[in-house]
C-alpha cells in the first residue's frame, strides 16, 4: 500500500511502469497486476449497476413515442431522434410558456450560485469554530443543529413562511437563498466540523505558536488542507439546490421559478399523455449542470496534507 502516499507515488509509478513493461516478474509485481484486475474488475462491474438506469434513460430519450410503446426498454433505438431533447430544452410547454427548460435556466443559476457560496462559507467557518475554537454552550447548539437535519422539510414550510414574512423577505430571491442556507447548515456544519476535527492537531498548534489568529489559520491552513471536503460540500449543495423544487415554488413568485419547476411540469403531469422520451431528456438535461460540477471539481480531490499547506 506504499503507493497510497504521495511521497512514494512517483517512484511507485516508475515501478508499475517497469512491471507492465517486463515479462512475468517476481511475486510482488504479479500481486500488483492481480490487484489491478481485481480493482478495475470490481469498479467496472459496479459501474454497470450505476450506468444501467442511465443507459435506459439515454436510449429512451432518443426514441420516438411509438417505439417506446412497444415496450423493450433495453433495446437501442431503431431510429435515433434528437427531437425529445430539443423539445425538452426549447419547446415543451408549461402552461403558456413553450420555452422548455431554457426558461428557468438562468433563474436556477441565480438561485444556486449565491446559495451555494453563502451556505458553504457560513458552514465552513462555523465548523472551524466548533472544531478548533470551542466555547461554552457550542455543543448544545451543535446538537440542536444536527437534530435539525432530521426534520422533514415539509413540516417546516409554514413556520418559515411566517419567518420570511416578518423579515420582509418573502417572495424574493434573498428569502430563498436564506432558506437554502438554513437547511444546508446542519449537514454542512457537521461535515466541516468533523473534518477539521480529524486533521492533525499539531498543525493548528504550530500555527498558534507562530502567532496566527482565528481568520489567519482558517484561510492559510484549514482552507487549503480541506479541499476534498469542500468538494463534497459543493457536490452536496449544488445538487440539492439545483434540484430543489419545493422551496423554489413556495417561497418565490413565477418570475424567479427555477428550472426544476419546468422539469416538474414536463415530467409530473398526472392526467395528460406522458411523453417518456421528453421526460428522460429533460431529466438528463437538468442533471447536466451538477454532472459538470462533479467532474470539474473532482480534480480537487487531492490528498489534503500533501497539497502542502504546512511542511514540517
Amino acid at each position, binding site marked *: 500500500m506504499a503507493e497510497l502516499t504521495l511521497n512514494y507515488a512517483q517512484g511507485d509509478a516508475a515501478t508499475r511502469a517497469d512491471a507492465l513493461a517486463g515479462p512475468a516478474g517476481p511475486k510482488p509485481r504479479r500481486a500488483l497486476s492481480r490487484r489491478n484486475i481485481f480493482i478495475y474488475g470490481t469498479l467496472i462491474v459496479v459501474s454497470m449497476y450505476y450506468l444501467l438506469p442511465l443507459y435506459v434513460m439515454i436510449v429512451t430519450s432518443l426514441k420516438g413515442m411509438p417505439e417506446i410503446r412497444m415496450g423493450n426498454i433495453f433495446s437501442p433505438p431503431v431510429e435515433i431522434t434528437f427531437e425529445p431533447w430539443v423539445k425538452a430544452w426549447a419547446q415543451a410547454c408549461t402552461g403558456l410558456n413553450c420555452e422548455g427548460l431554457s426558461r428557468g435556466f438562468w433563474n436556477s443559476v441565480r438561485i444556486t450560485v449565491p446559495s451555494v457560496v453563502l451556505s458553504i462559507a457560513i458552514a465552513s467557518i462555523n465548523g472551524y469554530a466548533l472544531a478548533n475554537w470551542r466555547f461554552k454552550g457550542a455543543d448544545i447548539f451543535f446538537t440542536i443543529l444536527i437534530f435539525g437535519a432530521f426534520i422533514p422539510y415539509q413540516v417546516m414550510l*409554514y413556520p418559515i413562511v411566517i419567518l420570511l414574512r416578518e423579515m420582509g423577505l418573502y417572495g424574493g430571491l434573498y428569502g430563498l437563498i436564506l432558506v437554502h442556507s438554513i437547511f444546508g447548515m446542519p449537514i454542512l456544519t457537521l461535515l466541516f466540523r468533523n473534518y477539521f476535527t480529524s486533521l492533525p492537531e499539531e498543525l493548528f498548534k504550530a500555527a498558534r505558536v507562530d502567532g496566527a489568529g482565528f481568520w489567519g489559520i482558517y484561510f492559510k491552513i484549514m482552507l487549503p488542507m480541506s479541499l476534498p471536503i469542500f468538494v463534497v460540500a459543493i457536490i452536496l449543495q449544488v445538487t440539492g439546490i439545483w434540484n430543489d423544487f419545493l422551496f423554489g415554488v413556495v417561497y418565490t413568485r*413565477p418570475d424567479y421559478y427555477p428550472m426544476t419547476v419546468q422539469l416538474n411540469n414536463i415530467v409530473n403531469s*398526472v392526467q395528460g399523455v406522458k411523453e417518456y422520451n421528453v421526460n428522460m431528456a429533460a431529466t438528463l438535461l437538468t442533471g447536466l449542470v451538477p454532472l459538470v460540477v462533479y467532474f470539474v471539481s473532482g480534480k480537487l480531490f487531492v490528498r489534503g496534507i500533501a497539497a502542502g499547506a504546512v511542511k514540517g
Partner: protein
Amino acid sequence: MRYRLLTAALGATAALTISGPSQATDLEVTHWWTSGGEAAAVAEFAKAFDATGHKWIDGAIAGSGGTARPIMISRITGGDPMGATQFNHGRQAEELVEAGLMRDLTDIAEANNWKEVVHPASLLDSCTLDGKIYCVPVNIHSQQWLWLSHKAFEDAGVPVPTNWDEFVAAAPKLEEAGKIPLAMGQQPWQTSLAFQVLVVALAGQDAYNKIYGDKDAEVAASPELAKVFEAADQARSMAAKSNVQDWNQATNMVITGQAGGQIMGDWAQGEFQVAGQVAGEDYSCLPGLGVNEVIQTGGDAFYFPVLADEEKSAAQADLAALMLSPEVQVAFNLKKGSLPVRGDVDLDAANDCMKKGLDILAKGNIIQSPDQLMSADSLTRVNDLFVEFFNNTSITAEDAQKRFVDIVASAD
C-alpha cells in the same frame, strides 16, 4: 422586479391601444394544467384575458393537490397571494373561505347570471358557502367510465360486454386467451377511483349520496354495499396480474388488447386518440360501467384570493366573468377534452364518448364528486381502506365493509 415592472408597463400601453373594460394590469394565475392538451386549453383562457387588455402571468405547477396546496397557503399567509388559482372545489377550500382569504364573487355572478347558465346547478352549489359564491367552475370531468378493448374480446371469442356483469362473466374467457381482464395501475389513487366508480355504478345514486353526503352508516352496511364489495373482490382478482404503475400504461394495455378493460376517467380518451383508435370500432366506453349511467360533475374551479390592490381586483372580476362566457367555455373545453359547465353551448366537435357524456348530463343523471361531499380527511381514510383491501387478498369483502361502515360513521 425589473421584469415585473416592465411587463406591467407593457400591459399598460397595450391597454391604451385596445382600451379594455377596466384599467389594465397583470394577474398571476396558478394552475396545474401542464400537459400538452391541458396547456393548450389554458392558453384559451389567457388569450381571451389578454384580449381584454390585461396580462395573464402564468404560474403553472404540475401535480395537483399535494403541490398546489402548500403553494397557495404559503403565498396567501406570506402576504403575497396570486391573482387567481385553480383548486378542487367543494369542501377542500372551505377553510380558506371561512378565514376570509377568498374573494366573494357573488356580485359578478349576479351580474352575469351564473345561476341560470351554469348547468348542472350543483357545480355552483359547491362554490357556494352561506349563500355567497366563491369560485368559478370551468369544466366537468367524469371518472365513471369503463374502457373496453374490442381486440381483447375478439381474441377471447366473446362479444364486447355492455355492462359490468357481462364483463365479469367474460373474465375467465379472457384469462384463457392469455389476457388480463382488468387493467389497473398500482398507484393508490387509481384503485380508490375504481372503488368510487363501483359504489355509484352498482349501488346507485341514492346509496352514493347517502354514504358520501349524509355519511349514513346504515346504508354503508346494507346488502347493496355488500354487492359493491363483492364486485370489488372480483375486480381484485381480475386485476391480479396487472403489473403496471401509471394509469396510461394500463390504458396502453387496453389499447394493445393485452387487457380487456380499465376503469378510468374521461382523460383516458386522450391516449386512445393518440394511438389512432376510434370510439365504437376499436374501443368502447361505458359510462357508469353500463349499469347506472351517471357521471360525476367534478371538475376544476378557480378561486380568487382577496387582494389589496384595486386594479388587480378589477382584473380578477374581468377574469372570473370571462371564464364562464360561452365562447371561452367552448374553446377551452374542446381543447381540454372535458364538458362545458354551460348547458347552452354547442359542442359539435365532440366525439362519441364525449357525446354520451353530454347526453347523460342533459338527462341530469349526475352526482357530485366525493370531494364535494366529504372532507378530504375522511375521504383519504376511505381511499386508504380500499387500497389496502385491493392489494391484500387476506382481507375479505365482509371485513372491508365492516371497516368501511366504521369510517363512514365517524366521517365528516
